[in-house]
């Protein structure tokens, strides 16, 4: 029976909001926050265990909580939030209806069931296999079932996104070309298809093996296909994060991409090539050749990295161009100094860009080169790298945009706005210290996923250089600060969403919606639209080259190997 969609007209943005879409967005966002809560409690326990001055958890629980933490951050928190974002970008942003509400509820049901089942199995001790669950390690079949249910639900949500786009196009609700935010989400959705289909290809046989239906799964095949799920899952995050950056720039400063064609081409490069770099995880593995490794790890001659470089310029340039049009043209950086730093979405976005670029991106590209991987694989430098990308980058960006989602989607005023202004800084500084300490420890050779780096009870006890002690302290303090930043965000979000005063109209917006600034006329492209951003990106490039030189120098000092 066809039920006509019910809309409300948003009195703040003028967009038509499908009520079912709104409900689904809210619920997915709530489960995202719940998963993050589970993950951050895990994070606290893990930081206090690896910091061996405390060494809180015993070995078995360390590996168990590590499994829980990885699952709930890299999969559950992020995918629930992204599904909310996909629905938002394909319905509300386009003033379009949700194409199949009942299917949307089914997707949510599957995702929630999978999330709960997997988490319960891990906590009950039936899946001490870490998020990667490398075969021949084997978990209980219910654990794999939980993952599969979640993945199927997420895949349905992704198809609903595409369905919504088709419905919106046919209904003609937005004109010919998708808004850039939705376009970036479409890139994320395409990568999500790659991710989840790879997941099905690997988890179904593994599930059957855990039931005893098939005799085994080849470990090399498992790792290859699993990372076809694992790494693209993070590339969904990259695409979604960049989309959120553009959105945040628009909401906080009214800035738009200085060249839509270039920004869209960058998203297309993500779609076509970014998933090849799943090979990053197999660079020091047998069975696959160097030819395969070099081609795939390079994202096809670094074309997908070029895409990130484009966004690294285009997003700050959007802000700079808007600010310059407002009259902040003095010197190279007045536009930045006079930007709305008091707006937590703005500060979160800028910190996310800097953190993702300088910490996550630089380490990612260099550690992902075939040979330099030799000196970092499975050391603590690897989690240090991805704290820079997924935590400082994606998660902070998502946290930041939530300060607009609370009034616009949940229709509540933010409770604790004063604290909210500090939250991005507390979190960003904490994670930055944590990530840098981890990279430093990894450079010293400290392993990741390891309960005791004093090796007590082992036949040979290795000791790391004394400087490691200092780095562990920074690790501990940074980690605690980061945990504080997350708990602060969760507190603000929960209080606002459930107890915040309801929004009565545009006058209740605590964070302003900036006046959109149209692009300045630049007929032959002769003018410099963002000189400040250009300087910043060149500084970034210089930093990259220094880190490149350091790592290849360190590699050259090791033993010969061929």
């Amino acid at each position, binding site marked *: 029976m066809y039920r006509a969609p019910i809309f409300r007209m948003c009195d703040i943005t003028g967009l038509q909001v499908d009520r079912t879409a709104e409900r689904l967005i809210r619920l997915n966002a709530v489960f995202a926050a719940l998963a993050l809560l589970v993950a951050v409690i895990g994070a606290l326990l893990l930081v206090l265990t690896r910091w061996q001055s405390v060494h809180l958890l015993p*070995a078995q629980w360390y*590996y168990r909580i590590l499994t829980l933490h990885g699952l709930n951050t890299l999969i559950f928190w992020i995918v629930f939030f992204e599904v909310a974002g996909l629905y938002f970008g394909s319905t509300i942003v386009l003033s379009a209806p949700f194409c199949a509400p009942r299917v949307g509820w089914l997707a949510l049901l599957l995702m929630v069931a999978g999330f709960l089942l997997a988490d319960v199995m891990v906590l009950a001790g039936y899946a001490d296999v*870490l998020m990667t669950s*490398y075969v*021949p*390690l084997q978990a209980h079949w219910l654990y794999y079932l939980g993952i599969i249910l979640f993945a199927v639900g997420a895949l349905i949500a992704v198809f609903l996104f595409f369905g919504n786009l088709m419905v919106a196009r046919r209904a003609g609700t937005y*004109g*010919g070309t998708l*808004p*850039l*935010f939705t376009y970036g989400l479409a890139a994320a959705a395409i990568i999500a298809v790659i991710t989840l289909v790879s997941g099905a290809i690997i988890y179904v046989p593994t599930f059957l093996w855990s039931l005893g239906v098939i005799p085994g799964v080849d*470990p*090399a095949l498992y790792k290859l296909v699993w990372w076809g799920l694992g790494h693209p899952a993070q590339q969904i995050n990259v695409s979604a994060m960049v*989309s959120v950056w*553009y*959105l945040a*720039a*628009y909401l906080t400063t009214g800035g*738009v991409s*200085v060249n*839509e*064609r*270039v920004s869209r081409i960058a998203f297309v490069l993500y779609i076509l090539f970014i998933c090849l770099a799943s090979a990053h995880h197999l660079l020091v*593995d*047998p069975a696959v050749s*160097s*030819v395969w490794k*070099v081609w795939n790890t*390079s994202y096809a*001659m*670094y*074309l997908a990295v070029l895409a990130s*470089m*484009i966004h690294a*310029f285009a997003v700050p340039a959007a802000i700079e161009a808007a600010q310059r049009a407002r009259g902040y043209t003095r010197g190279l950086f007045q536009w930045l100094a006079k930007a709305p730093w008091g707006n937590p979405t703005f500060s979160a976005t800028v910190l996310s860009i800097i953190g993702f670029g300088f910490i996550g991106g630089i380490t990612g590209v260099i550690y992902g080169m*075939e040979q330099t*991987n*030799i000196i970092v*694989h*499975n050391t603590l430098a690897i989690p240090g790298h991805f704290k820079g990308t997924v935590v400082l980058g994606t998660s902070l960006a998502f946290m930041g945009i939530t300060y607009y989602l609370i009034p616009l989607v949940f229709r509540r005023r933010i409770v604790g706005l004063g604290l909210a202004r500090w939250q991005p800084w507390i979190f960003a500084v904490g994670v930055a210290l944590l990530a840098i300490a981890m990279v430093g420890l990894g*450079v*010293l*050779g400290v392993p990741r996923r*390891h309960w005791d780096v004093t090796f007590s*009870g*082992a*036949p*040979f006890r*290795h000791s790391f250089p004394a400087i490691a002690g200092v780095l562990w302290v920074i690790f501990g303090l940074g980690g605690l600060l980061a945990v504080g930043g997350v708990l602060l965000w969760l507190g603000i979000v929960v209080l606002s969403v459930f107890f915040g005063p309801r929004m009565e109209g545009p006058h209740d917006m605590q964070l302003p919606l900036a006046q*959109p600034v149209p692009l300045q006329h*630049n007929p*032959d*492209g002769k003018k410099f*639209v963002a000189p400040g951003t250009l300087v910043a990106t060149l500084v970034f490039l210089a930093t990259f080259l220094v880190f490149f030189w350091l790592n290849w120098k360190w590699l*050259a000092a*090791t*033993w*010969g*190997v*061929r």
Partner: protein
Amino acid sequence: MSLRPPAEGWYETPIARDERGWVAVAMSVCLCLFFWMIGWHLYGQQNPSSISYRISPSEYMQLHLQWVERYRIGEENGVPVVAPPPGSDVLLLAQMWRWSPVVVLQKGQEYTFHLASVDLLHGFSLQPVNMNFMVYPGYDYVLRFRPREAGEFHILCNEFCGIGHHLMTGKVYVVENAAELERLRQRFRGSQP
């Protein structure tokens, strides 16, 4: 507009000078990175090998034990110590939760290491040199190492392999020359069972 469809003429908008310049610089860096990896394969001293073989865990265990007996010079902390001739094969075995054997190498000589596991995935992490490779059950990863400094080194396991993961450490001695090797041999002669 990120929330609205782009302004009319978005496709035809010329690229501003600074964006164009940045993209050109970025593109050159990207190409350089790609060719750098290829170049390092030709001129660099450190490259993962593309040599692997299939071998069942039991068969590898058998080969390993036979090889250990051939070149055994003693024992340390319950682990056999082996001194293979320079230029020959080293059959390292990873299992829950030990590395076997302890190996004595000569500085500057090349050895053909075989890395294989008999149960789960393990991580070969040579410290403090800091070289890291994966060790699989069912596969033999062949890597030719050439130590460039003398000393005592440890092999850590850095791939999670169960509750005893942190107990899994091994050792590598690198001696300066044949005379030093003799001295080490004498030292271990006392420990021969």
